[in-house]
């Protein structure tokens, strides 16, 4: 039996993403999934696995790829309600997609990506599973922040969403920014991703534990929706749905058991720089993400 293959799936949001939680404790009617302990936004493994399965089934239906009905069943397990066959677990284990960096509005350069010591430490652990060395995760005071680029230190403090944070540059954050820009956003020399690669290299901010919880709570997108009747007066609503903003970066660990060249190749083809539909409100254009895959070695 061959050893399982460890992979790291990096997701980059092209449009806002609504991976919905089931209940609300707030004024938000349709909140997104969050970790109970930290309040960080997350996409649960079961939601992500469903999205990956859907992508594989779509690829199979469209034809011209390595995906066959049999391979989908092998990798993702038996389908819900599939009668007349023995149920089987899939070979792909899908972890939660955890927050790596979230865009927050700023008074210059439109927005910056914020991350935290905890988010980077978790990501470092995932990289280590692949056997890849990572830059150190720098420590920062709870009420301060570290920037990858010098544009953020021209003034004493910067406005980030609802917070005002003093920033200084950090070589470690710069290294992280370079790594993530290449792995999650895309190549620097690509005409489409190049600009965002460069922006990420300059605009990654690591903020302290006083600031991060407030930013992940308040800097999501909140949309009020109403249903109008024929006279264009409000029939129902408003109701509020919450979205993870476009430009958010998430990471999930994937493990493929009993890998074959076929299944490895198919997963690589499905998630290597391809679009992926994740979460709800699909018909409102939500949940389009770019997927990239990092493998061991």
């Amino acid at each position, binding site marked *: 039996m061959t050893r399982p293959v460890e992979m790291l799936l990096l997701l980059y949001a092209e449009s806002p993403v609504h991976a919905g939680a089931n209940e609300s404790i707030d004024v938000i009617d349709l909140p997104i999934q969050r970790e109970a302990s930290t309040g960080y936004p997350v996409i649960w493994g079961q939601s992500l696995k469903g999205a990956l399965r859907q992508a594989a089934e779509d690829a199979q239906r469209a034809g011209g790829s390595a995906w066959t009905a049999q391979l989908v069943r092998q990798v993702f397990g038996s389908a819900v309600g599939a009668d007349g066959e023995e149920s089987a677990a899939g070979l792909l284990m899908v972890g939660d997609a955890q927050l790596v960096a979230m*865009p927050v509005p700023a008074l210059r350069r*439109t927005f910056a990506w914020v991350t935290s010591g905890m988010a980077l430490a978790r990501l470092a652990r995932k990289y280590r599973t692949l056997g890849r060395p990572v830059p150190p995760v720098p420590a920062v005071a709870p009420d301060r922040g570290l920037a990858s680029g010098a544009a953020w230190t021209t*003034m004493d403090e910067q406005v980030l*969403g609802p917070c005002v944070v003093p920033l200084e540059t950090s070589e470690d954050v710069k290294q992280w920014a370079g790594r993530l820009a290449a792995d999650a956003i895309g190549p620097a020399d690509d005409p489409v991703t190049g600009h965002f690669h460069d922006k990420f290299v300059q605009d990654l901010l690591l903020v302290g534990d006083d600031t991060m919880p407030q930013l992940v709570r308040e800097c999501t997108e909140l949309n*009020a929706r109403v*249903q109008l009747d024929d006279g264009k007066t409000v029939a129902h609503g408003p109701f509020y749905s919450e979205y993870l*903003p476009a430009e958010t970066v998430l990471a999930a660990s994937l493990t493929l058991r009993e890998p074959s060249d076929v299944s490895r190749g198919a997963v690589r083809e499905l998630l290597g720089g391809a679009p992926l539909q994740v979460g709800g409100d699909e*018909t*409102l*254009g939500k949940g389009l993400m770019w997927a990239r895959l990092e493998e061991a070695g």
Partner: protein
Amino acid sequence: MHSAPGIGLGAGANALILLHRVVFVDDEGSIDKRGGDLLLKWAAVEGLGQEPGLLQRVSARRTAMLDSLRARGAGVARLRVRPEWRMAVGLGNRANPHEIGLSLHGTYGWPVIPGSTLKGMTAAWARRSGGADIERIFGSPRPGVDAREAARQGTVRFLDALPADEPVTVTVDVVTPHAQPYYGSANTGASGSGVVPPAEHHNPIPSMFLTVSGGLFAVDLTGPADDVRQAARWCREAFDELGVGAKTAAGYGYANAMTAEG
């Protein structure tokens, strides 16, 4: 936020901060109207912070996403939508103390026509055709209609429409109610003696709001090719016949939608 002289807030300042988080108060602690006027002025001069370089790249990445979906067999339609006059989408979204409402993109803070707005407008126009494909394209059950089949998702995706390639023009508009105390009390749901009757002695009170007055939006639809074609046709007609957003009875929201090549 304290005012700091010398900080030029150019394009690249995010309207999600300036319009949603900033409040100006005077010495007595009440809201300073002049501050709100300053915010409106910034919004008009800087186009709500649309930074042309970033906007172009965001637009290019959106196009790449659509190309990528098309390569995987999805139907894709792009409309280029030019307001005939002014457009006021999201006026009721007054998420700030100065009561300035406009739909803004959740990351960049630029003017946007939300996917839900586009879908609602298109569905309202499609309803007049009464075809059986409405439930398939928009999902079911439809509001006010008994479902002919089980609840299901529509086939066509309506993406949020961003300014296409270059910034759209933002203009400060004004509406001047002549009996503001009457409208104010009637709109808060007061009844009986709570409602101030309209009268000649009330002063006209000008009230500013933001509109989009020029430029192009890219409206993108994806899904099965035939359904996307039909939805794009309805959407194009709806821009022309119904208008998008608020104040369509006063001529706002009508737009010229052209099918883009590719």
